[in-house]
C-alpha cells in the first residue's frame, strides 16, 4: 500500500451532523442525569480543543500506525468472490489491528483525551470483550487505571477476552443485573461514572450515549473509510458499488460509511443481528422491530415494549446484542442513505465458516453478520461489481461458540 490513504478524505466534510445540540436530525442529544452534565460538557470542550490540536492529532496518528498497525490492508477475496460467482469482494482488514478489532482506533483517541483531561482512571463497558480488551490495552499503554464492566452472560461466552483484560491489568467487574449483557454493563458503567466523575473518564465503545460521544467515536473511526476509499481507488480505479458492515451500536459501520456519504453512487448496507427470529426478545434488529426512544443518553431507535420498557435482546454475537443503535444511524435510516437489514445467528455462523475455509480468515461473529448479507447478495451482482466489507474483528474469541454450535 502506498502512503496515500488519508489524502482521499482529509479535506472532505461528509455531513453537517451533529448540530450544536448534538442532534443528528431529530436523533441524538443528551439525556443523562444532571450529575453527568458537567462531565459531558467538559468532555465536549476537551474534545473540541484536541480535535484542532496538531500535537494531539500527530500523537494519535503515530500510535495508530506504530502501536495499532494502521493502515490496515484492503484485501481482494478472490476465492470467495469466485465461489459466489458475482461481485468482487474486498475485505477491509480491521481484524488485523492490534487487539483484533477496530475498537482500538477509538480507544487510542479517547485514551489520549483522558490523559489530556487529567483523568487517571478509565472505565468501559464491553459486550464481546473487544472494546474491553482495547480499553485495557490503552490503559496499560498510557499508565491509567482501568475498570471494565461486562455482563455475566458475556463473560461466559467470551471468556478468552476476560483473561486478556485481566492479564493487561484491568479489573473486570461482572454485571449480574437485567439481561446480564451489554445494556446492563452500560448501566453499571454509568453508575460508576456518576459516582467517580472527578478522576474517571467513561471510555464509551460505540457511537452511542450522550453528545459528544456519537460524534467523537465516529471521528476516531473515520480513518477506516478514509483509508478504504483511497485503497479501493488505487486497487480498482473506481469507487465501490456497495459497502457492507455489521451494526451493533454502529461504530465500525459508521467508520467505514462516513467518508463515502457524499458519494451517491456508493450504496451502503448495515447488517443488524437477526438472532433466532424477528420476535421481540429474539433479536437485536432495531430498525426491524424498534421505534424512537431514549436509552443511555441518546434519542434513537430502541427495541422496547409499548410501555417504554427496554426489551431483552438476543444475538449469538455479544457485540451486536444491544437494544439501541447509534443516533447517526437512525438519521441515515430515516433519510434512506443507508439500507439496514439483518442476518440470523445461523447465517452468521455459516458465513464465518465459509470465510474461514475459502480465504483462511476466521472472522468475528459480529463481522460475520455483514458477510452473511454479502453471501446472500454477491451472486445477484455482476462480476464487475465491487463490494467492500468491513471485517471489523477476528474470530479467535468465538471459538467456544463455534464449538458449541457444532460447526467444528
Amino acid at each position, binding site marked *: 500500500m502506498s502512503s496515500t490513504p488519508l489524502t482521499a478524505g482529509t479535506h472532505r466534510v461528509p455531513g453537517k451532523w451533529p448540530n450544536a445540540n448534538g442532534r443528528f436530525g431529530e436523533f441524538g442529544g443528551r439525556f443523562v442525569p444532571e450529575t453527568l452534565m458537567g462531565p459531558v460538557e467538559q468532555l465536549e470542550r476537551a474534545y473540541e480543543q484536541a480535535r484542532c490540536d496538531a500535537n494531539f492529532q500527530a500523537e494519535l496518528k503515530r500510535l495508530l500506525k506504530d502501536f495499532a498497525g494502521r493502515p490496515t490492508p484492503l484485501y481482494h477475496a478472490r476465492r470467495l468472490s469466485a465461489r459466489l460467482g458475482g461481485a468482487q469482494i474486498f475485505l477491509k482488514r480491521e481484524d488485523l489491528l492490534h487487539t483484533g478489532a477496530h475498537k482500538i482506533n477509538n480507544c487510542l483517541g479517547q485514551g489520549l483525551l483522558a490523559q489530556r483531561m487529567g483523568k487517571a482512571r478509565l472505565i468501559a463497558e464491553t459486550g464481546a470483550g473487544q472494546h474491553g480488551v482495547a480499553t485495557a490495552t490503552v490503559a496499560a499503554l498510557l499508565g491509567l487505571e482501568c475498570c471494565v464492566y461486562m455482563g455475566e452472560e458475556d463473560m461466559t461466552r467470551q471468556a478468552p477476552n476476560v483473561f486478556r483484560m485481566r492479564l493487561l491489568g484491568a479489573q473486570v467487574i461482572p454485571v449480574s443485573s437485567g439481561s446480564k449483557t451489554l445494556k446492563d454493563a452500560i448501566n453499571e458503567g*454509568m453508575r460508576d461514572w456518576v459516582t467517580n466523575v472527578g478522576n474517571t473518564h467513561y471510555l464509551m465503545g460505540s457511537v452511542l450515549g450522550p453528545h459528544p460521544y456519537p460524534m467523537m467515536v465516529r471521528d476516531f473511526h473515520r480513518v477506516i473509510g478514509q483509508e478504504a476509499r483511497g485503497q479501493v481507488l488505487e486497487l480498482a480505479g473506481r469507487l465501490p458499488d456497495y459497502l457492507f458492515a455489521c451494526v451493533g451500536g454502529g461504530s465500525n459501520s459508521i467508520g467505514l460509511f462516513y467518508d463515502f456519504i457524499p458519494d451517491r453512487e456508493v450504496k451502503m448496507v448495515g447488517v443488524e443481528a437477526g438472532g433466532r427470529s424477528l420476535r421481540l426478545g429474539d433479536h437485536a434488529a432495531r430498525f426491524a422491530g424498534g421505534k424512537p426512544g431514549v436509552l443511555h443518553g441518546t434519542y434513537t431507535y430502541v427495541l422496547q415494549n409499548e410501555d417504554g420498557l427496554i426489551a431483552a435482546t438476543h444475538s449469538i454475537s455479544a457485540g451486536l446484542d444491544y437494544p439501541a443503535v447509534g443516533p447517526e444511524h437512525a438519521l441515515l435510516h430515516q433519510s434512506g442513505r443507508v439500507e439496514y437489514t439483518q442476518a440470523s445467528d445461523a447465517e452468521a455462523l455459516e458465513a464465518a465458516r465459509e470465510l474461514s475455509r475459502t480465504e483462511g480468515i476466521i472472522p468475528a461473529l459480529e463481522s460475520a453478520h455483514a458477510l452473511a448479507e454479502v453471501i446472500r447478495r454477491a451472486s445477484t451482482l455482476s462480476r464487475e461489481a465491487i463490494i467492500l466489507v468491513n471485517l471489523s474483528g477476528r474470530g479467535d474469541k468465538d471459538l467456544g461458540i463455534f464449538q458449541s454450535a457444532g460447526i467444528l
Partner: protein
Amino acid sequence: MANASTSRLSPVFHELLKGGEKGLVVYVTAGDPSLEATGEILRAIDHGGADVIELGVPFSDPLADGPVIQRASERALKGGATLRKVIARLPAWRAGVGAPIVLFSYYNPILQYGLDAFARDARRAGVDGVLAVDLTPEEADPYLQAVRTQELDPVFLAAPTSTDDRLKRAAEASSGFLYLVSRTGVTGERDELATTLAPLVQRARRQTSLPLAVGFGISNPRQVRAVQQLADAAVVGSAVVHAVETRYSSGGARAIGDFVRWLKHGTGSEPA
C-alpha cells in the same frame, strides 16, 4: 411565570415555612412489592408524616439508582407495574392521602406514553409534580410545555457538578421545589452526608427562591435533621424502599408508616 404552581406542592412548602418547619419527602417505588400493596403503603407514608411523596415508576434500566431501588424496580416490573397502570390506579391510591405526589420516572416511559397524554392523565389522576431523572432542562422543551399546560410542577435535579449557570437553569425550569442531589453517585444509603452538600445549598440559594429539597444518601433521623438545618426538606428514598423490602411482608404497611414516623420524629435506633 415558570414558577407559578397550582399544585399542592407550593402550599405545603408555604405552610412549612410559615410554621418555621422543615419538610420530609419520602420516595417509594410504585408496584413494590405489588400494585395492590402500593395504595396502603402510600397511606401509611402519609400518615407517618411525609410532607411530600415521590412515587417512583419502575424502569427496566434505572441507571441513576443504586442496588436497593434497582431491586425494587425489578420486583415491581415482575408484578406488572408500568407507568400506565400506575396512573390508572393513582386515583384510588390517592384517596385518603393528603401529601402532594410527585411522579418520579425515567424519561422513555413518559415519551412513549405521549407527552400530552401523560401530563393530562397524570393531572387527572391527582399527580402534583413530575420528575424525569434523565431529562435536563435543555432537552425538556416539549415536556415542559405539556406538563405546564396541565399545571403540574416540573421538578429538576441540580448536582454538586452543576455549574451556577446550570443551577439557575434547573431552578428556572422547576416549580414547586428544586431537588438537590447531595453527592455525585447513584441513589442509596450512606453513613455520612457529603461535604459537597453545604456549598451546593448555598449556591442554589443564590440562584432561586424555590424551596430546596435534598436527596441521595439520606437514611436516618440524624441525617434528616442535618439536611433540614441546611435546606427546606430532606428526601429519603432507598432507606424507605429497603424498609418495604425487609418489613412489609411481616409488618405490613403499618411497619412502613412506623419507619417514616421514626424518620420524621425519631432520635434513637430504627423501630423494631
